[in-house]
């Protein structure tokens, strides 16, 4: 009995820092933010309780809320599949024994370690219709004149998605780690059955790393919904709000105009959307194969 008590005490001692953080930095602030979302508060005068007023105003009387939500869904829909597929392909290629492997891995990781701000400003320059190298390159293959990119409300969002394609580094690393967990003997067995390279990827690698794909998919969607820096640095939401992202709008409301209550309501709607999305994805995750537990 004493031993059990001791074990419990010890266990809680080890996780204590996280538990304190959970209460003080997560659950406490969450409750506070839920309450704040029911108030009007500019930090300088005391908060005024308005009930569901903020939510009502957001949903029925704020076109920018819908605009930013639509933009964000567009971005997530473009970015997530591109990044996951590309990162997976690159990881499979860089998992082979090829020359210069360490250099190539570093090259693909390079845009991830370059300071984001510098990278994004550099892209602004490269996308410049007059001075940028992207339209120079397009002109070489006969596309002249190239799009206005960040100056055009049709092309600004595709430009941001293209930029996102260059930051596959972390997703690639997690895929590479997952690929190392695929037992070598399965490849050997497949080879004995006469499987070629494509078959090995399709019938051995892919099924076994579905949990990693699922992990990257969920984290990718959650991350992409929170995109901020890219839009803040590259377009600041323009032109004509074409790249006004959800979190950028939230930042403006809370930290530019000090509407803490309205900002909190925006945060809770985002949370609700992500919660429902994640829930649906978990319910529909029969395609994910977990080794050692059958299907």
């Amino acid at each position, binding site marked *: 009995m004493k031993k059990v008590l001791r074990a419990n005490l010890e266990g809680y001692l080890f996780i204590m*820092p996280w538990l304190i953080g959970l209460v003080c930095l997560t659950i406490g602030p969450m409750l*506070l933010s839920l309450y704040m979302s029911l108030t009007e508060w500019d930090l300088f005068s005391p908060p005024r309780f308005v009930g569901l007023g903020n939510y009502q105003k957001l949903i029925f009387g704020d076109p920018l809320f819908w605009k930013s939500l639509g933009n964000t869904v567009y971005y997530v829909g473009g970015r997530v599949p591109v990044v996951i597929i590309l990162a997976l392909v690159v990881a499979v290629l860089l998992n082979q024994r*090829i020359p210069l492997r360490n250099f190539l891995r570093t090259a693909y990781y390079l845009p991830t370690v370059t300071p984001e701000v510098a990278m994004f400003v550099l892209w602004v320059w490269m996308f410049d219709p007059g001075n940028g190298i992207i339209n120079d390159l397009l002109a070489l293959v006969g596309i002249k004149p190239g799009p206005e990119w960040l100056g055009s409300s049709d092309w600004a969002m595709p430009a941001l998605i293209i930029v996102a394609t260059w930051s596959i580094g972390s997703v690639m690393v997690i895929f590479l780690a997952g690929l190392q967990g695929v037992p070598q003997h399965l490849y050997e067995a497949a080879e004995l059955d006469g499987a070629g390279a494509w078959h090995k990827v399709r019938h051995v690698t892919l099924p076994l790393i579905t949990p990693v794909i699922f992990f990257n998919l969920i984290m990718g969607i959650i991350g992409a919904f*929170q995109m*901020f820096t890219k839009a803040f640095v590259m377009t600041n939401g323009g032109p004509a709000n074409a790249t006004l992202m959800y979190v950028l709008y939230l930042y403006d409301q809370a930290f530019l105009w000090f509407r803490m209550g309205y900002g909190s309501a925006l945060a809770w709607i985002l949370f609700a959307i992500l919660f429902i999305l994640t829930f649906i994805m978990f319910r529909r995750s029969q395609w994910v194969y977990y*080794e050692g537990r059958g299907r």
Partner: protein
Amino acid sequence: MERGTEIRASTVQALPFWKRKTFQTYLGQTLVFLIAFLGGIAFFVPFFWAVSSSVKLDSQLFVDPPIWIPNTIQLQNYPEALSAIPFARYYLNTAIITGTSMIGDVVVSTLVAYGFARMRFVGRDTLFMVLLATMMLPMQVTMIPQFIIYRSLGWINTFLPLIVPSFFGSAFYIFLLRQFFLGIPLDLEDAARIDGASSLHVLWYVFVPLSLTAMATVAIFSFMQHWQDFFLPLIYLNSNDMKTVSLGLQMFRSDFSTDWNHMMAASVMATIPPLLLFFFAQRFFISGIVMTGLKE
């Protein structure tokens, strides 16, 4: 037996060279290398452009056709960038924040992960589910109240809001380390326990030496996260001498123009530490992430 090999050898000989297995493997490898290499170049171009611009004269920046390798190398752009904006100061600030947070992330996440991986206590599995759920919580939900709490503590314009949270452990790092710890055989721990070792002893003498790759992975992820961070410094640091590299880079831009070559020089300098770290540590980095048994 001998005859068999002979026959096989002769059939191989009979095949034309493009149908032979060795040739096909070779072809496949070359193809894989070529695709990976071309893609690698595409990923390298922005950085190359940054390096090349960082050593250009102002007059070489916007010419048509673009200059990829300038004929004169303006290395003085580098010291100029360091003094133009108090950039040396920003490096120091960023290094302090990154270094301290990294220590917090590694030490505290290791302790908590060990608790979740090897201790038996009531509610452990439920609490671990809660931990996983917090990974999916968008930071915006807690960000505004956290700002208000830090503000009432007088922490605005100090490094504390950027550092202190790391000392309460980070969900993703705890998750990575726990996955790794689960793979360490129980026998090793039992042997130490029989000799009367305490849990902290077991952690320090058994788990830590075996988990250096996973801990290095957490250290690298943590380094990248804090070195790169833009959002939290933007919210919390607003006086000029407290800024970080990410914020400082923005100062090379005004509404009307950008001081390109100096900005790129500063960016290249900011890229070098994480770049070297990744290049030399990638072996540990990748083997330190255990993604098998995600559902355990």
